[in-house]
């Protein structure tokens, strides 16, 4: 294990950026999002949650798939080059990484999404354990341990020090390249990390949503949950905006569109949201015609359809972004609780 004083963070970042492209949480006018590093950027590793999840780095909100160019009467198709530069995703949290695992299930299964795979292969994830989990967090519900993220490198932020542990080969390689800035850790430091982990886990136990029960949510309850009358009441405050889907680390639906550049066509894909009225629009129209159906789709997908197709893995990771960001204060926790209450009423 290694360590570095937190005051030396800028030097560490600079050293990483000298090796590879570096993405990290950057504060822009009070809002923290993952962004490319630049000298003097306002790096912020203290804010627990970035507004948008870091899935952007692997699955950007918009990306070009290919370009068609028109010259005179000739058309030429230029495929988009795949990512070929190594990069470091610095400061991802345990829930965000679980989110990437969910995306892996979708994009790395056959047929493989080559754009996504290229980014996954070139990315090194440097995770940061959650120093101070917040009330909207419920990652433990999904079996995520925010004190020990599953990444290439794990960092702990305690005692004004960043403790650094390489886990995978990629992580070791990065660590070796940084030998100039990282210091060796000793037994006392190992102890400090253990204490930090204990502290984190103790706080997690006290979080209000930690004991949320997922009982009754699995891949075999499609009919029962789909036809529940609860949805009709639940969806009412929903404004049909895409905030929850766009801040979510696991939402993976996208739309493919053509953009007329005046001298050709750019075919691109962009995140889509099941909350939008043109989601999965087909020639005959749309198969979900009401907001209730669209709202239901989001939660059925996360808690029923996804586990049904992926060995029981939920496509929610408990990051709590939707809890904080929904304009109408609706969220997946309220949905789960509403069904729990409904089940209790029936008994």
């Amino acid at each position: 294990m290694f360590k570095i004083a937190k005051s030396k963070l800028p030097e560490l970042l600079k050293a990483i950026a000298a090796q590879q492209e570096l993405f990290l949480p950057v504060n822009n006018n009070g809002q923290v999002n993952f962004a490319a590093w630049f000298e003097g950027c306002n790096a912020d590793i203290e804010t627990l949650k970035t507004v948008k999840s870091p899935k952007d780095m692997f699955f950007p909100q918009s990306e070009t798939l290919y370009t068609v160019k028109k010259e005179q009467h000739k058309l030429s198709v230029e495929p988009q080059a795949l990512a070929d530069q190594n990069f470091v995703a610095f400061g991802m949290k345990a829930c965000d990484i679980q989110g990437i695992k969910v995306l892996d299930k979708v994009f790395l299964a056959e047929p493989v999404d080559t754009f996504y795979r290229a980014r996954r292969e070139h990315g090194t994830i440097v995770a940061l354990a959650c120093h101070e989990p917040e009330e909207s967090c419920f990652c433990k519900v999904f079996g995520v341990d925010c004190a020990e993220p599953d990444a290439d490198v794990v960092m702990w932020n305690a005692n004004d020090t960043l403790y650094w542990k390489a886990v995978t080969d990629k992580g070791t390689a990065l660590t070796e390249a940084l030998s100039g800035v990282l210091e060796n850790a000793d037994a006392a430091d190992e102890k400090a990390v253990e204490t930090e982990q204990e502290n984190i886990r103790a706080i997690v136990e006290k979080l209000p949503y930690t004991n949320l029960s997922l009982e009754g949510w699995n891949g075999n309850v499609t009919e029962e949950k789909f036809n529940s009358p609860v949805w009709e009441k639940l969806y009412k405050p929903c404004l049909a905006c895409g905030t929850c889907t766009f801040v979510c680390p696991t939402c993976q639906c996208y739309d493919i569109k053509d953009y007329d550049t005046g001298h050709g066509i750019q075919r691109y894909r962009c995140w889509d949201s099941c909350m939008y009225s043109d989601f999965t629009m087909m020639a005959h129209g749309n198969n979900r015609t009401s907001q209730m159906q669209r709202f239901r789709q989001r939660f059925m997908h996360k808690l029923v359809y996804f586990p049904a197709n992926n060995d029981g893995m939920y496509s929610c990771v408990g990051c709590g972004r939707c809890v904080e960001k929904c304009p109408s204060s609706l969220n997946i926790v309220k949905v789960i609780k509403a069904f729990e209450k409904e089940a209790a009423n029936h008994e």
Partner: protein
Amino acid sequence: MQEMINRAKELLSDGTVNRVLGWRRGDMSYNPEPSYFETAEDLDANFVYNGFCGANLSKYMIEGSKLEGKTLVFLKPCDSYSFNQLIAEHRVDRDKAYIIGVGCMGKLSFEKIKEQGVKGITNITIDDANENITVETLYGEKTLAYKDCMLERCHVCKGKEHQIFDETIGESRDTKDADRFAEVEKIEAMSPEEKFAFFQNELSRCIRCNACRNVCPACSCRKCVFDSTKFDSAQKANVDSFEERMFHIIRAFHVAGRCTDCGECSRVCPQGIPLHLFNRKFIKDIDEFYGEFQAGVDPEAKSPLTSFTFNDVEPGVTGGRR
């Protein structure tokens, strides 16, 4: 709050209204949601009204107007402007609404609370005088001044008067302590380069979630122009900076003269973009060019963009401080 519940129960039981549109207690102190209530038990158990009930229920009355019978709706003073404006646009049915104007002491912003270094909130209590809020967290307790936690819009409060109501309950407080156009004027005074850099930076965070549009009581089109599939600029792709600029200019333009400055767009933006700066610029220009106008005061009034005078200012002159 109890007075509101009691009155709602009375109106429900005597059949004046079929349902109540209010705020439902959330599972945290700060997240009540807009909701319908149909029974006295539900009202007793779950109705809530406090500083976190910022949502403008006028927008929900567009759908509420299509329901059977009357809906009791609670409107704060600034929400009532929106309701009036929706009447002017024939988007809500006055006869389908029983409006109780509720008092407002200024509404709180979760973001502003968190900005003051609060983490892991377990409970928030607001004192009776609405002077302070006490935030209990996993990492200790903190007392914050109510004023420091208010939404931006409350600092430029439009006043305590309800523009439309059947009856009123509760006291209001005028929380205005800033000039409505101060921020706009600050930007106007910048050089073009500075202006451009300022908006470029703010809009670069936009994720095109459309929350600003969907929450807006003035954005009441059944189908938004940005949702059209025949339109180049996709409503959900943040492909490049042009799209964001286009979207936000047009969004604000489409509500120019109809925007009551209720501030919902800025409240809901997940990226904290000061969207009201667009709307207020239009409001300020309208005031300057065509005379003072506040949308939502008089549902019979002609809106500035659907009327004209023979001697209006010429566009060339106005598009830049001479």
